[in-house]
Protein backbone atom coordinates (compact mmCIF):
# COMPACT_ATOMS: atom_id res chain seq x y z
CA UNK A 1 0.00 0.00 0.00
CA UNK A 2 1.43 3.32 -1.05
CA UNK A 3 -0.04 6.10 1.01
CA UNK A 4 1.32 9.55 0.81
CA UNK A 5 -0.81 12.64 1.04
CA UNK A 6 0.26 15.32 -1.37
CA UNK A 7 0.10 19.01 -0.65
CA UNK A 8 2.07 21.48 -2.70
CA UNK A 9 3.57 24.14 -0.49
CA UNK A 10 6.40 26.44 -1.42
CA UNK A 11 9.42 24.24 -2.00
CA UNK A 12 12.81 24.87 -0.52
CA UNK A 13 14.17 25.99 2.81
CA UNK A 14 12.62 29.21 4.04
CA UNK A 15 15.37 30.22 6.47
CA UNK A 16 18.74 29.21 5.12
CA UNK A 17 22.26 28.93 6.51
CA UNK A 18 22.46 32.68 6.96
CA UNK A 19 20.01 32.39 9.82
CA UNK A 20 22.13 29.66 11.37
CA UNK A 21 25.12 31.99 11.06
CA UNK A 22 23.16 34.83 12.59
CA UNK A 23 22.10 32.75 15.56
CA UNK A 24 25.60 31.34 16.00
CA UNK A 25 27.36 34.67 15.76
CA UNK A 26 24.72 36.26 17.93
CA UNK A 27 25.22 33.59 20.57
CA UNK A 28 28.95 33.94 20.28
CA UNK A 29 28.60 37.67 20.71
CA UNK A 30 26.47 37.65 23.81
CA UNK A 31 28.56 34.86 25.29
CA UNK A 32 31.73 36.84 24.62
CA UNK A 33 30.19 39.93 26.14
CA UNK A 34 29.23 38.13 29.32
CA UNK A 35 32.74 36.72 29.53
CA UNK A 36 34.22 40.16 29.04
CA UNK A 37 31.97 41.67 31.65
CA UNK A 38 32.67 38.95 34.18
CA UNK A 39 36.42 39.18 33.62
CA UNK A 40 36.26 42.95 33.84
CA UNK A 41 34.22 42.88 37.06
CA UNK A 42 35.63 39.91 38.85
CA UNK A 43 38.99 38.86 37.48
CA UNK A 44 42.48 39.97 37.96
CA UNK A 45 43.90 42.84 35.90
CA UNK A 46 46.01 40.42 33.90
CA UNK A 47 42.85 39.13 32.29
CA UNK A 48 41.95 42.61 31.06
CA UNK A 49 43.37 41.97 27.56
CA UNK A 50 41.21 38.87 27.23
CA UNK A 51 38.27 40.89 28.41
CA UNK A 52 39.08 43.49 25.77
CA UNK A 53 39.15 40.87 23.04
CA UNK A 54 35.89 39.39 24.21
CA UNK A 55 34.30 42.82 24.49
CA UNK A 56 35.27 43.67 20.94
CA UNK A 57 33.98 40.35 19.64
CA UNK A 58 30.53 40.96 21.11
CA UNK A 59 29.22 43.84 18.97
CA UNK A 60 31.18 42.70 15.93
CA UNK A 61 29.82 39.16 15.97
CA UNK A 62 26.25 40.24 16.63
CA UNK A 63 26.49 42.93 13.97
CA UNK A 64 27.83 40.49 11.38
CA UNK A 65 25.03 38.10 12.25
CA UNK A 66 22.46 40.83 11.89
CA UNK A 67 23.94 41.84 8.58
CA UNK A 68 23.62 38.29 7.33
CA UNK A 69 20.05 38.24 8.50
CA UNK A 70 19.42 41.56 6.80
CA UNK A 71 20.87 40.18 3.59
CA UNK A 72 18.23 37.48 3.74
CA UNK A 73 15.28 39.86 3.93
CA UNK A 74 13.19 39.88 0.81
CA UNK A 75 12.42 43.56 1.01
CA UNK A 76 15.31 45.25 2.78
CA UNK A 77 14.15 48.82 2.19
CA UNK A 78 11.27 48.22 4.53
CA UNK A 79 13.45 47.20 7.45
CA UNK A 80 12.75 50.54 9.13
CA UNK A 81 9.16 49.36 9.47
CA UNK A 82 10.29 47.35 12.48
CA UNK A 83 10.95 50.63 14.20
CA UNK A 84 7.77 52.33 13.07
CA UNK A 85 5.41 49.61 14.12
CA UNK A 86 4.65 48.29 17.55
CA UNK A 87 4.57 44.52 17.36
CA UNK A 88 4.84 43.30 20.92
CA UNK A 89 3.52 39.81 20.13
CA UNK A 90 6.39 39.22 17.76
CA UNK A 91 9.50 37.67 19.25
CA UNK A 92 11.40 38.84 16.22
CA UNK A 93 10.36 42.43 16.82
CA UNK A 94 11.62 42.22 20.41
CA UNK A 95 14.74 40.51 19.10
CA UNK A 96 15.44 43.36 16.74
CA UNK A 97 15.12 45.90 19.53
CA UNK A 98 17.21 43.80 21.92
CA UNK A 99 19.96 43.12 19.45
CA UNK A 100 20.03 46.69 18.22
CA UNK A 101 20.39 47.95 21.77
CA UNK A 102 22.87 45.25 22.60
CA UNK A 103 25.12 46.04 19.67
CA UNK A 104 25.18 49.69 20.70
CA UNK A 105 25.82 49.09 24.36
CA UNK A 106 28.35 46.33 23.87
CA UNK A 107 30.18 48.56 21.41
CA UNK A 108 30.39 51.33 23.99
CA UNK A 109 31.49 48.79 26.56
CA UNK A 110 34.23 47.55 24.26
CA UNK A 111 35.27 51.12 23.58
CA UNK A 112 35.50 51.87 27.29
CA UNK A 113 37.63 48.79 27.83
CA UNK A 114 39.93 49.57 24.94
CA UNK A 115 40.22 53.27 25.73
CA UNK A 116 39.64 53.65 29.46
CA UNK A 117 40.99 57.20 29.42
CA UNK A 118 38.70 58.60 26.80
CA UNK A 119 36.71 61.19 28.64
CA UNK A 120 33.84 62.23 26.37
CA UNK A 121 30.46 61.29 27.80
CA UNK A 122 32.23 59.63 30.63
CA UNK A 123 28.99 59.08 32.52
CA UNK A 124 28.54 56.22 30.03
CA UNK A 125 30.97 54.22 32.06
CA UNK A 126 31.89 50.63 31.42
CA UNK A 127 30.18 49.75 34.65
CA UNK A 128 26.90 51.44 33.81
CA UNK A 129 26.84 50.25 30.24
CA UNK A 130 27.92 46.78 31.25
CA UNK A 131 25.25 46.39 33.86
CA UNK A 132 22.57 47.54 31.47
CA UNK A 133 23.88 45.28 28.72
CA UNK A 134 24.08 42.14 30.84
CA UNK A 135 20.32 41.52 30.99
CA UNK A 136 20.11 42.47 27.31
CA UNK A 137 22.78 39.89 26.57
CA UNK A 138 20.98 37.20 28.49
CA UNK A 139 17.66 38.10 26.85
CA UNK A 140 19.32 38.11 23.43
CA UNK A 141 20.78 34.70 24.14
CA UNK A 142 17.37 33.47 25.12
CA UNK A 143 15.84 35.16 22.10
CA UNK A 144 17.98 33.08 19.76
CA UNK A 145 16.15 30.05 21.01
CA UNK A 146 12.72 31.49 21.70
CA UNK A 147 12.46 32.91 18.17
CA UNK A 148 12.24 29.39 16.82
CA UNK A 149 10.63 27.78 19.85
CA UNK A 150 7.44 29.82 19.44
CA UNK A 151 6.90 28.45 15.94
CA UNK A 152 4.60 25.69 17.02
CA UNK A 153 4.09 24.31 13.54
CA UNK A 154 7.70 23.07 13.52
CA UNK A 155 8.06 20.21 16.00
CA UNK A 156 11.85 20.36 16.20
CA UNK A 157 11.72 24.00 17.18
CA UNK A 158 8.72 24.12 19.44
CA UNK A 159 10.61 22.60 22.35
CA UNK A 160 12.16 23.74 25.61
CA UNK A 161 15.36 22.13 24.43
CA UNK A 162 15.53 24.69 21.64
CA UNK A 163 15.81 27.45 24.24
CA UNK A 164 18.02 25.56 26.67
CA UNK A 165 20.40 24.57 23.90
CA UNK A 166 20.52 28.14 22.77
CA UNK A 167 21.57 29.37 26.18
CA UNK A 168 24.16 26.64 26.60
CA UNK A 169 25.45 27.32 23.13
CA UNK A 170 26.10 30.97 23.82
CA UNK A 171 27.95 30.06 26.97
CA UNK A 172 30.12 27.55 25.17
CA UNK A 173 30.73 29.36 21.92
CA UNK A 174 31.13 32.79 23.51
CA UNK A 175 33.92 31.55 25.74
CA UNK A 176 35.52 29.37 23.11
CA UNK A 177 35.31 32.11 20.53
CA UNK A 178 36.83 34.72 22.78
CA UNK A 179 39.62 32.40 23.85
CA UNK A 180 40.41 31.38 20.32
CA UNK A 181 40.46 34.93 19.00
CA UNK A 182 42.56 36.03 21.92
CA UNK A 183 45.06 33.25 21.29
CA UNK A 184 45.29 34.34 17.71
CA UNK A 185 45.77 37.90 18.86
CA UNK A 186 48.57 36.84 21.15
CA UNK A 187 50.15 34.74 18.47
CA UNK A 188 50.06 37.61 16.02
CA UNK A 189 50.73 40.60 18.24
CA UNK A 190 52.36 39.03 21.26
CA UNK A 191 51.04 39.12 24.80
CA UNK A 192 50.58 42.34 26.70
CA UNK A 193 53.07 42.92 29.48
CA UNK A 194 50.46 42.78 32.21
CA UNK A 195 49.20 39.39 31.07
CA UNK A 196 52.07 37.54 32.66
CA UNK A 197 53.16 34.12 31.64
CA UNK A 198 50.77 32.13 29.59
CA UNK A 199 51.00 29.17 31.92
CA UNK A 200 49.76 31.09 34.91
CA UNK A 201 47.29 32.81 32.76
CA UNK A 202 45.55 29.60 31.77
CA UNK A 203 45.71 28.20 35.24
CA UNK A 204 43.82 31.20 36.47
CA UNK A 205 41.04 30.59 34.01
CA UNK A 206 40.11 27.28 35.54
CA UNK A 207 36.58 28.42 36.47
CA UNK A 208 36.03 29.29 32.82
CA UNK A 209 37.08 25.86 31.70
CA UNK A 210 34.77 24.42 34.30
CA UNK A 211 31.90 26.47 32.96
CA UNK A 212 32.66 25.29 29.43
CA UNK A 213 32.88 21.71 30.55
CA UNK A 214 29.59 21.77 32.40
CA UNK A 215 27.84 23.62 29.60
CA UNK A 216 29.07 21.18 27.01
CA UNK A 217 27.99 18.25 29.08
CA UNK A 218 24.59 19.82 29.64
CA UNK A 219 24.31 20.50 25.93
CA UNK A 220 24.90 16.85 25.15
CA UNK A 221 22.25 15.91 27.69
CA UNK A 222 19.89 18.45 26.12
CA UNK A 223 20.45 16.98 22.69
CA UNK A 224 19.65 13.55 24.04
CA UNK A 225 16.49 14.86 25.68
CA UNK A 226 15.57 16.61 22.44
CA UNK A 227 15.87 13.37 20.54
CA UNK A 228 13.88 11.42 23.14
CA UNK A 229 11.09 13.97 23.14
CA UNK A 230 10.67 13.80 19.40
CA UNK A 231 11.40 10.13 18.91
CA UNK A 232 8.77 9.11 21.41
CA UNK A 233 6.41 11.97 20.77
CA UNK A 234 3.40 12.17 18.50
CA UNK A 235 3.61 10.94 14.91
CA UNK A 236 4.51 14.31 13.46
CA UNK A 237 7.42 14.66 15.90
CA UNK A 238 8.65 11.23 14.94
CA UNK A 239 8.40 12.06 11.26
CA UNK A 240 10.44 15.18 11.78
CA UNK A 241 13.22 13.59 13.80
CA UNK A 242 13.42 10.77 11.28
CA UNK A 243 13.76 13.27 8.47
CA UNK A 244 16.35 15.31 10.37
CA UNK A 245 18.46 12.25 11.15
CA UNK A 246 18.16 11.01 7.59
CA UNK A 247 19.28 14.31 6.13
CA UNK A 248 21.73 15.59 8.70
CA UNK A 249 22.74 12.36 10.44
CA UNK A 250 26.42 12.61 9.58
CA UNK A 251 26.61 16.28 10.48
CA UNK A 252 24.97 15.55 13.83
CA UNK A 253 27.40 12.71 14.47
CA UNK A 254 30.26 15.01 13.64
CA UNK A 255 28.94 17.72 15.94
CA UNK A 256 28.44 15.35 18.85
CA UNK A 257 31.88 13.85 18.31
CA UNK A 258 33.39 17.33 18.32
CA UNK A 259 31.58 18.26 21.50
CA UNK A 260 32.64 15.04 23.19
CA UNK A 261 36.18 15.71 22.06
CA UNK A 262 35.99 19.21 23.48
CA UNK A 263 34.60 17.78 26.68
CA UNK A 264 37.52 15.40 26.92
CA UNK A 265 39.99 18.23 26.37
CA UNK A 266 38.27 20.27 29.10
CA UNK A 267 38.64 17.35 31.48
CA UNK A 268 42.25 17.00 30.40
CA UNK A 269 42.84 20.69 31.00
CA UNK A 270 41.34 20.50 34.47
CA UNK A 271 43.31 17.34 35.32
CA UNK A 272 46.47 18.96 34.01
CA UNK A 273 45.70 21.99 36.13
CA UNK A 274 45.31 19.85 39.22
CA UNK A 275 48.80 18.53 38.56
CA UNK A 276 50.05 22.05 38.11
CA UNK A 277 50.50 21.68 34.44
CA UNK A 278 48.59 23.15 31.58
CA UNK A 279 47.46 22.11 28.17
CA UNK A 280 49.66 23.13 25.30
CA UNK A 281 48.31 26.13 23.39
CA UNK A 282 47.44 24.14 20.30
CA UNK A 283 45.33 21.76 22.38
CA UNK A 284 43.42 24.72 23.79
CA UNK A 285 42.96 26.02 20.30
CA UNK A 286 41.62 22.66 19.18
CA UNK A 287 39.27 22.62 22.14
CA UNK A 288 37.92 26.01 21.12
CA UNK A 289 37.59 25.02 17.48
CA UNK A 290 35.76 21.83 18.40
CA UNK A 291 33.33 23.77 20.53
CA UNK A 292 32.72 26.42 17.92
CA UNK A 293 32.38 23.88 15.13
CA UNK A 294 30.15 21.57 17.11
CA UNK A 295 28.08 24.49 18.30
CA UNK A 296 27.61 25.86 14.82
CA UNK A 297 26.67 22.46 13.47
CA UNK A 298 23.98 22.14 16.12
CA UNK A 299 22.58 25.54 15.21
CA UNK A 300 22.73 24.71 11.54
CA UNK A 301 20.92 21.42 11.94
CA UNK A 302 18.35 23.03 14.22
CA UNK A 303 17.58 25.85 11.78
CA UNK A 304 17.57 23.86 8.55
CA UNK A 305 16.50 20.49 9.87
CA UNK A 306 13.58 22.06 11.65
CA UNK A 307 12.15 23.09 8.30
CA UNK A 308 12.38 19.66 6.74
CA UNK A 309 9.33 17.72 5.81
CA UNK A 310 6.46 19.70 7.26
CA UNK A 311 4.40 16.75 8.41
CA UNK A 312 1.65 16.59 5.84
CA UNK A 313 -0.01 13.59 7.40
CA UNK A 314 -1.06 15.72 10.32
CA UNK A 315 -1.55 18.75 8.12
CA UNK A 316 -4.35 16.84 6.48
CA UNK A 317 -5.96 16.08 9.82
CA UNK A 318 -9.50 17.32 10.11
CA UNK A 319 -11.01 17.27 13.56
Amino acid at each position, binding site marked *: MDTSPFYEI*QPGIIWDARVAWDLSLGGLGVGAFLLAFLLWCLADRRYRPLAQTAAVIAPVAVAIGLTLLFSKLGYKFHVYQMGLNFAPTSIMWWGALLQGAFVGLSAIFAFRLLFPNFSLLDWLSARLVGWVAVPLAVLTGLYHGVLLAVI*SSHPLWATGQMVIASVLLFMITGSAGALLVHMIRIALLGARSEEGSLKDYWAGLRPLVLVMLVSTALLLVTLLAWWIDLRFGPTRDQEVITAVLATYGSLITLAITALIGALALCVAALLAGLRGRSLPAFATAILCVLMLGGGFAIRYVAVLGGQLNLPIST*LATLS
Partner: protein
Amino acid sequence: MSDKRYAMVIDLHRCVGCAACDIACKSENNVPVEFHWSNHIIETTGTFPDTRYNYIPTLCNHCENAPCVTNCPTTAMHKSEDGLTLHDPDKCIGCRLCQLSCPYGVIWFNKEDPHQNFMRDSEPAIPGGTSTGQEVAQAADAPIPYYNPARATTYQGIRDRGMVEKCTFCDHRLAVGEDPACVIACPADARIFGDLNDLESPPSKALAKYTPRVLQRDQGTKPHVFYIRNFNK
Protein backbone atom coordinates in the same frame (compact mmCIF):
# COMPACT_ATOMS: atom_id res chain seq x y z
CA MET B 1 -15.91 49.34 13.82
CA SER B 2 -17.21 46.45 11.81
CA ASP B 3 -19.11 43.69 13.53
CA LYS B 4 -18.50 41.08 10.85
CA ARG B 5 -16.68 37.83 11.29
CA TYR B 6 -16.15 36.32 7.87
CA ALA B 7 -15.80 32.58 7.54
CA MET B 8 -16.03 29.83 4.96
CA VAL B 9 -17.58 26.42 5.33
CA ILE B 10 -16.49 23.82 2.79
CA ASP B 11 -18.95 21.01 2.20
CA LEU B 12 -16.72 18.10 1.27
CA HIS B 13 -19.70 16.00 0.25
CA ARG B 14 -20.48 18.51 -2.48
CA CYS B 15 -16.85 19.08 -3.45
CA VAL B 16 -15.74 16.99 -6.42
CA GLY B 17 -12.08 17.98 -6.27
CA CYS B 18 -11.96 19.77 -9.62
CA ALA B 19 -9.73 22.73 -8.66
CA ALA B 20 -11.94 25.31 -10.37
CA CYS B 21 -11.43 27.24 -7.12
CA ASP B 22 -7.65 27.04 -7.44
CA ILE B 23 -7.58 28.26 -11.01
CA ALA B 24 -10.23 30.95 -10.59
CA CYS B 25 -8.25 32.25 -7.63
CA LYS B 26 -5.15 32.60 -9.74
CA SER B 27 -7.15 34.50 -12.33
CA GLU B 28 -8.90 36.77 -9.85
CA ASN B 29 -5.85 37.59 -7.76
CA ASN B 30 -3.10 37.62 -10.39
CA VAL B 31 -1.36 34.84 -8.51
CA PRO B 32 1.85 33.49 -10.07
CA VAL B 33 1.42 29.99 -11.43
CA GLU B 34 3.79 28.50 -8.87
CA PHE B 35 1.70 29.74 -5.96
CA HIS B 36 -1.57 28.34 -4.72
CA TRP B 37 -3.52 30.72 -2.53
CA SER B 38 -6.33 28.29 -3.08
CA ASN B 39 -4.93 24.80 -2.82
CA HIS B 40 -5.75 21.20 -2.04
CA ILE B 41 -4.46 18.19 -0.16
CA ILE B 42 -4.94 14.86 -1.93
CA GLU B 43 -4.48 11.38 -0.66
CA THR B 44 -5.02 7.87 -2.00
CA THR B 45 -5.32 5.23 0.71
CA GLY B 46 -6.15 1.55 0.88
CA THR B 47 -5.23 -1.33 -1.36
CA PHE B 48 -6.87 -2.18 -4.67
CA PRO B 49 -9.81 -2.67 -5.01
CA ASP B 50 -10.57 -1.06 -1.64
CA THR B 51 -8.93 2.16 -2.69
CA ARG B 52 -9.98 5.52 -1.33
CA TYR B 53 -9.21 8.92 -2.76
CA ASN B 54 -9.58 11.99 -0.61
CA TYR B 55 -9.42 15.66 -1.47
CA ILE B 56 -9.37 18.58 0.94
CA PRO B 57 -9.52 22.08 -0.54
CA THR B 58 -7.38 24.51 1.42
CA LEU B 59 -6.82 28.23 1.60
CA CYS B 60 -5.76 30.73 4.23
CA ASN B 61 -7.75 29.82 7.33
CA HIS B 62 -8.00 33.44 8.45
CA CYS B 63 -7.29 32.15 11.94
CA GLU B 64 -8.66 34.02 14.91
CA ASN B 65 -5.38 33.23 16.61
CA ALA B 66 -3.11 33.61 13.62
CA PRO B 67 0.54 32.73 14.26
CA CYS B 68 1.58 34.63 11.15
CA VAL B 69 0.10 37.79 12.67
CA THR B 70 1.48 37.10 16.14
CA ASN B 71 4.99 36.62 14.86
CA CYS B 72 5.16 39.31 12.18
CA PRO B 73 7.78 41.83 13.33
CA THR B 74 6.26 44.78 11.50
CA THR B 75 2.50 44.18 11.76
CA ALA B 76 2.49 43.78 7.98
CA MET B 77 0.49 40.63 8.58
CA HIS B 78 -2.54 41.75 10.52
CA LYS B 79 -6.13 41.02 11.38
CA SER B 80 -8.73 43.28 9.84
CA GLU B 81 -11.75 44.32 11.80
CA ASP B 82 -13.81 41.85 9.75
CA GLY B 83 -11.66 39.00 10.97
CA LEU B 84 -9.63 38.69 7.79
CA THR B 85 -5.94 37.96 7.99
CA LEU B 86 -4.41 40.49 5.62
CA HIS B 87 -0.96 41.43 4.46
CA ASP B 88 0.28 44.97 4.00
CA PRO B 89 3.12 45.05 1.46
CA ASP B 90 4.11 48.56 2.55
CA LYS B 91 5.25 47.13 5.86
CA CYS B 92 6.53 43.75 4.72
CA ILE B 93 10.27 43.23 5.04
CA GLY B 94 10.20 39.78 3.49
CA CYS B 95 11.57 37.97 6.53
CA ARG B 96 9.24 35.03 5.84
CA LEU B 97 8.62 34.42 9.52
CA CYS B 98 4.88 34.33 8.74
CA GLN B 99 5.53 31.54 6.28
CA LEU B 100 7.41 29.59 8.92
CA SER B 101 4.75 30.28 11.49
CA CYS B 102 1.77 29.22 9.42
CA PRO B 103 0.97 25.57 10.11
CA TYR B 104 -1.02 25.36 6.89
CA GLY B 105 1.53 26.29 4.25
CA VAL B 106 -0.72 28.93 2.71
CA ILE B 107 1.74 31.82 2.54
CA TRP B 108 3.94 32.21 -0.52
CA PHE B 109 7.11 34.21 -1.00
CA ASN B 110 8.19 35.91 -4.21
CA LYS B 111 11.79 34.80 -4.45
CA GLU B 112 11.95 36.02 -8.01
CA ASP B 113 10.02 38.50 -10.04
CA PRO B 114 6.55 37.04 -10.41
CA HIS B 115 5.00 35.89 -13.69
CA GLN B 116 8.28 35.15 -15.44
CA ASN B 117 6.38 33.41 -18.22
CA PHE B 118 5.21 36.81 -19.37
CA MET B 119 7.70 39.22 -17.81
CA ARG B 120 10.88 37.43 -18.79
CA ASP B 121 9.91 35.39 -21.82
CA SER B 122 11.76 36.79 -24.79
CA GLU B 123 12.42 33.87 -27.15
CA PRO B 124 9.49 32.95 -29.41
CA ALA B 125 8.75 29.40 -30.48
CA ILE B 126 8.74 30.40 -34.14
CA PRO B 127 10.35 33.77 -34.85
CA GLY B 128 7.86 35.93 -36.73
CA GLY B 129 5.15 33.34 -36.42
CA THR B 130 4.55 33.19 -32.70
CA SER B 131 5.10 35.64 -29.86
CA THR B 132 7.06 35.98 -26.68
CA GLY B 133 5.38 36.38 -23.33
CA GLN B 134 6.64 39.93 -23.19
CA GLU B 135 5.09 40.73 -26.54
CA VAL B 136 1.73 39.37 -25.44
CA ALA B 137 1.82 41.41 -22.25
CA GLN B 138 2.88 44.42 -24.26
CA ALA B 139 0.13 43.99 -26.81
CA ALA B 140 -2.44 43.50 -24.09
CA ASP B 141 -1.05 46.56 -22.32
CA ALA B 142 -0.77 44.87 -18.94
CA PRO B 143 1.99 43.10 -17.02
CA ILE B 144 0.20 39.81 -17.58
CA PRO B 145 -2.40 39.81 -20.31
CA TYR B 146 -5.27 38.59 -18.10
CA TYR B 147 -4.27 40.96 -15.27
CA ASN B 148 -7.26 41.72 -13.07
CA PRO B 149 -7.07 45.35 -11.94
CA ALA B 150 -9.79 44.83 -9.34
CA ARG B 151 -7.24 43.04 -7.22
CA ALA B 152 -5.27 46.25 -6.95
CA THR B 153 -8.08 48.10 -5.24
CA THR B 154 -7.08 46.71 -1.84
CA TYR B 155 -3.72 45.00 -2.31
CA GLN B 156 -0.79 45.13 -4.69
CA GLY B 157 -2.13 44.03 -8.08
CA ILE B 158 0.93 41.82 -8.44
CA ARG B 159 3.10 41.40 -5.42
CA ASP B 160 6.71 42.47 -5.57
CA ARG B 161 9.73 40.30 -5.54
CA GLY B 162 10.76 39.93 -1.91
CA MET B 163 7.22 40.01 -0.57
CA VAL B 164 5.05 37.26 0.74
CA GLU B 165 1.46 36.95 -0.43
CA LYS B 166 -1.60 34.98 0.50
CA CYS B 167 -5.35 34.57 0.23
CA THR B 168 -7.29 37.58 1.46
CA PHE B 169 -10.77 36.02 1.25
CA CYS B 170 -10.93 38.35 -1.77
CA ASP B 171 -11.28 41.42 0.44
CA HIS B 172 -11.47 43.54 -2.71
CA ARG B 173 -14.59 41.68 -3.73
CA LEU B 174 -16.09 41.78 -0.23
CA ALA B 175 -15.57 45.53 -0.37
CA VAL B 176 -17.95 45.78 -3.31
CA GLY B 177 -20.41 43.23 -2.00
CA GLU B 178 -19.20 40.18 -3.91
CA ASP B 179 -18.32 36.76 -2.51
CA PRO B 180 -14.74 35.51 -2.88
CA ALA B 181 -13.82 34.28 -6.35
CA CYS B 182 -13.42 30.67 -5.25
CA VAL B 183 -16.94 30.69 -3.84
CA ILE B 184 -18.40 31.90 -7.12
CA ALA B 185 -16.17 29.60 -9.15
CA CYS B 186 -17.07 26.45 -7.27
CA PRO B 187 -19.38 24.57 -9.66
CA ALA B 188 -20.48 22.32 -6.81
CA ASP B 189 -21.56 25.19 -4.51
CA ALA B 190 -19.38 23.51 -1.92
CA ARG B 191 -18.13 26.79 -0.47
CA ILE B 192 -20.47 28.55 1.91
CA PHE B 193 -19.24 32.01 2.75
CA GLY B 194 -20.53 34.73 5.02
CA ASP B 195 -20.59 36.39 8.41
CA LEU B 196 -20.56 34.19 11.49
CA ASN B 197 -21.86 37.04 13.62
CA ASP B 198 -25.06 36.78 11.65
CA LEU B 199 -26.68 33.63 12.97
CA GLU B 200 -28.87 33.46 9.90
CA SER B 201 -25.98 33.58 7.45
CA PRO B 202 -25.38 30.48 5.31
CA PRO B 203 -22.15 29.51 7.07
CA SER B 204 -23.72 29.94 10.50
CA LYS B 205 -26.56 27.68 9.48
CA ALA B 206 -24.23 25.12 7.96
CA LEU B 207 -22.13 25.05 11.11
CA ALA B 208 -25.23 24.55 13.19
CA LYS B 209 -26.53 21.76 11.01
CA TYR B 210 -23.36 19.70 10.67
CA THR B 211 -20.42 18.93 12.90
CA PRO B 212 -17.72 21.29 11.70
CA ARG B 213 -14.10 20.31 11.57
CA VAL B 214 -10.95 22.34 11.02
CA LEU B 215 -7.43 21.53 9.95
CA GLN B 216 -4.94 20.88 12.74
CA ARG B 217 -7.22 21.89 15.57
CA ASP B 218 -4.40 21.13 18.02
CA GLN B 219 -2.44 24.11 16.73
CA GLY B 220 -4.91 26.32 18.55
CA THR B 221 -5.19 28.71 15.66
CA LYS B 222 -9.00 28.83 15.59
CA PRO B 223 -9.41 28.74 11.82
CA HIS B 224 -12.25 30.47 10.05
CA VAL B 225 -12.35 27.86 7.31
CA PHE B 226 -14.49 24.94 8.41
CA TYR B 227 -15.19 21.59 6.81
CA ILE B 228 -18.41 19.64 6.92
CA ARG B 229 -19.34 16.13 5.71
CA ASN B 230 -17.00 13.82 3.79
CA PHE B 231 -15.46 13.80 0.33
CA ASN B 232 -16.02 10.10 -0.20
CA LYS B 233 -18.52 7.58 1.06
